[in-house]
């Protein structure tokens, strides 16, 4: 319809078999509709969504020159799109279509009051007709998709996603905050329930990432800015200086050997402080990229410049070590983003009564993973901080999980890894190992079998969470005595232990909220990123083109992380291979000459779709970012923001028609 043309509306009342016609008087509804303003044709028909029903509309459009269509039938969730297509196929803008829900909202819920239900349906149809008269044509925009992908986070999920995409021939940027990729998995010794060596299965994948021609790997780097939207994100990455030129360093590690500090004396982050490193280091022997890092906090050459720099002398590559190296901020263009930013383990300092940090006998499970790891600080031997081998070890499940004081949710992996740790400790030390659990959750493939196996090996399972930890001696340096209510026995247990392992839960990264804002996605209350739909869109977010993989979405084990990474890669691939995407027609827009630049709308937009154009300071809405919630429209104090499909005028007329009843169209009282 051209502007100014009067609306010519066709109204179609669907019987839906007896679903509607059994309650509402469909004939009288069609007659009623025929008397409404601007209505040219009105009909009732058995099944409007059937082929003949659709053809009826097309025919009327041709014969009566209809330019608006109203179908009174079921919920718009079912057939709105169907009838929009009908309109489009007959040459009418598909958004000149209005659906009226007289089935779910009238026939079905008021079948005991047929008269009142019909009156209500009249009101709904009248409102639909009023709204239809105010509809405006809308054109759907298409945007091209840039074929490169950004993967944030180089744990197993990020690695898997990057490799899948790169193997499919797509350009991938993998950005990792730590000096190496590998994530938490690289810290583990074995993986449950198969007891595969973590390094054996992870290292080949890490190397593949490092060598892949389609992957640009930036470690020791983080994303600081994301502009644009699906199809064309512009991402700024901060590359922190490692004081070594990655392209020159060959990873011979001679610099580490030659460091002016003969002994490793800095607490190793990778070993959680249980091991030591030098100021120049690689986090662990299989690090990728195999490039050293100079720690600016402890390397005196970086810090003060006052060092004889034996590392530079020993380095065979001229200029590889460069203490003048500065931060860099490269910008990249990508079409889609996969977030695989992982998790952090629960900090048991928050539950001080377990004595972590207070008594040396108390460890976190991640620390024990390092003790068990052959390339860890003890070479895989389980020895205590006092150098002794433990004879009695307790593992407390659910530390920071299933607890209103910390995290409400179950961390999903602790039962299994606790049993794995129990098995490994028993295998290597012969110690008595006690698992203090609330419920054993072993629902994965091969999990229950592993539970059986560990029980058979003589690991003790006490159903009761440890409620108290006290040192055996007041100095706190020796054994600890734990108290638990053995709930199956119905008896209190007090057990002295050489080593107490806290099976800490998984938490969202500390900076999840900042990352969420950066990428315009949402976090749950716990800080995990929210998927678009928990079942049907588990790797999508509400921001188009941004996908999730791994524990940043929720705690999960390695197989699930890998599977989700594959799904995220497939979603990204699907977009790239389609080449372009259609944007929803439901978005808000600012009328520039009417906007006063009051900025009210800017902070309200959950997607940061609203910015101020620099010249006149007026608000501008990025159509690709806007999701059409209408918050800004409702809040714009000068009424200068509109929303396609949900314009103020349409809603006002709908409300008015809904309640003004028969009086409004001059029919007199009924």
């Amino acid at each position, binding site marked *: 319809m051209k502007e100014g043309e009067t609306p010519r509306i066709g109204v179609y009342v669907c019987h839906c078999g007896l679903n509607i016609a059994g309650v509402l008087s469909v004939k009288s509804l069609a007659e009623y509709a025929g008397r409404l303003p601007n209505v040219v044709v009105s009909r009732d028909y058995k099944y409007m969504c059937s082929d003949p029903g659709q053809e009826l509309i097309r025919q009327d459009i041709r014969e009566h020159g209809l330019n608006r269509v109203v179908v009174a039938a079921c919920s718009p969730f079912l057939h709105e799109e169907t009838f929009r297509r009908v309109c489009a196929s007959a040459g009418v803008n598909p958004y000149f279509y209005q659906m009226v829900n007289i089935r779910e909202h009238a026939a*079905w819920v008021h079948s005991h009051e047929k008269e009142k239900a019909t009156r209500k349906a009249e009101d709904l149809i009248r409102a639909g007709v009023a709204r239809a008269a105010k509809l405006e044509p809308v054109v759907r925009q298409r945007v091209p998709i840039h074929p490169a992908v950004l993967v944030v986070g180089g744990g197993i999920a990020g690695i898997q996603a990057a490799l899948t995409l790169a193997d499919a021939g797509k350009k991938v940027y993998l950005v990792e905050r730590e000096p190496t990729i590998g994530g938490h998995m690289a810290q583990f010794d074995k993986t449950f329930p198969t007891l595969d060596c973590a390094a054996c299965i992870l290292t080949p994948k890490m190397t593949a990432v490092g060598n892949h021609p389609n992957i640009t790997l930036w470690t020791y780097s983080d994303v600081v800015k994301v502009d644009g939207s699906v199809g064309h994100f512009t991402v700024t990455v901060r590359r922190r200086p490692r004081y070594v030129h990655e392209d020159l360093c060959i990873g011979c590690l001679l610099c580490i050997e030659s460091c002016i500090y003969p002994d490793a004396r800095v607490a190793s982050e990778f070993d959680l402080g249980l091991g030591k490193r030098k100021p120049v280091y690689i986090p662990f022997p299989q690090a990728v990229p195999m490039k050293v890092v100079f720690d600016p906090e402890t390397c005196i050459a970086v810090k003060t410049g006052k060092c004889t720099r034996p590392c530079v002398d020993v380095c065979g590559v001229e200029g590889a070590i460069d203490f003048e190296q500065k931060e860099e901020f490269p910008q990249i263009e990508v079409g889609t983003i996969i977030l695989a930013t992982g998790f952090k383990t629960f900090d048991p300092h928050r539950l001080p009564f377990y004595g972590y940090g207070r008594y040396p006998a108390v460890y976190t499970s991640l620390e024990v993973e390092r003790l068990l790891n052959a390339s860890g600080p003890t070479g895989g031997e389980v020895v205590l901080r006092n150098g002794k081998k433990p004879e009695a070890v307790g593992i407390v499940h659910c530390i920071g999980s299933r607890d209103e004081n910390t995290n409400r949710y179950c961390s999903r992996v602790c039962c299994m890894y606790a049993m794995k740790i129990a098995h490994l400790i028993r295998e290597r030390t012969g110690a008595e190992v006690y698992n203090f659990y609330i419920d054993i959750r072993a629902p994965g493939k091969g999990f229950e079998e592993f539970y059986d196996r560990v029980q058979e090996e003589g690991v003790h399972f006490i159903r009761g969470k440890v409620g108290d930890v006290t040192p055996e001696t007041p100095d706190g340096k020796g054994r600890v005595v734990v108290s638990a209510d053995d709930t199956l026995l119905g008896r209190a247990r007090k057990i002295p232990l050489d080593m107490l392992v806290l099976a800490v839960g998984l938490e969202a990264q500390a900076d999840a909220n900042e990352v969420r804002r950066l990428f315009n996605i949402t976090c749950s209350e716990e800080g995990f990123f929210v998927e678009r739909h928990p079942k049907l869109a588990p790797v999508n977010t509400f921001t188009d083109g941004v996908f999730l993989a791994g524990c940043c979405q929720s705690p999960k084990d390695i197989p699930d992380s890998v599977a989700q990474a594959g799904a995220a890669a497939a979603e990204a691939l699907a977009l790239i291979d389609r080449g372009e995407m259609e944007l929803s027609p439901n978005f808000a827009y600012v009328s520039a000459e009417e906007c006063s630049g009051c900025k009210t709308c800017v902070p309200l937009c959950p997607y940061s779709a609203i910015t101020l154009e620099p010249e006149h300071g007026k608000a501008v809405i990025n159509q690709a970012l806007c999701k059409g919630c209408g918050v800004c429209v409702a809040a714009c104090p000068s009424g200068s923001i509109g929303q396609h499909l949900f314009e103020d005028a349409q809603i006002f007329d709908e409300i008015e028609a809904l309640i003004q009843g028969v009086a409004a169209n001059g029919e007199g009282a009924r």
Partner: protein
Amino acid sequence: MTPATNGHDPKIVSLFCNWCTYIAADSEGVSRKQYPASTRVVRLMCSGRVDPQFVLDAFAKGADGVLIGGCHPGDCHYSEGNYKNLRRYSLLKRVLTEFGIDPRRLRLEWISASEGEKLAKVIREMTEELRALGPLNLPEKIARPEAVAMEA
């Protein structure tokens, strides 16, 4: 109930968010649950789209009550639209009271897509309450300012 209000069928304009309360209304239909035919739904994408003008307009045009339905806090499809609605609602209720409109005529409920029964319950309750309050008849009262006495 007094004779004046007996048999009065209140009209409720319902402003429902597309993702939670509208779906709840649909699912109540699918399960054929019955509730009073007092409500008329306007579908909006988010309760955050509810402009206070819509509420005032509904009353001014003849509604006896307005029901806003949105997702539960924390569940908003658009992150925080429901909170924005809640903030406006809080102030709007005070304005309505000052204008002499019983605040029970405006109701905000968090009803998720799975809470069809809650929706039906709210509609039943509100219908009863409005029936007890009697018709608002605002268009008439506004149109004839001299005829309608303003006693406190």
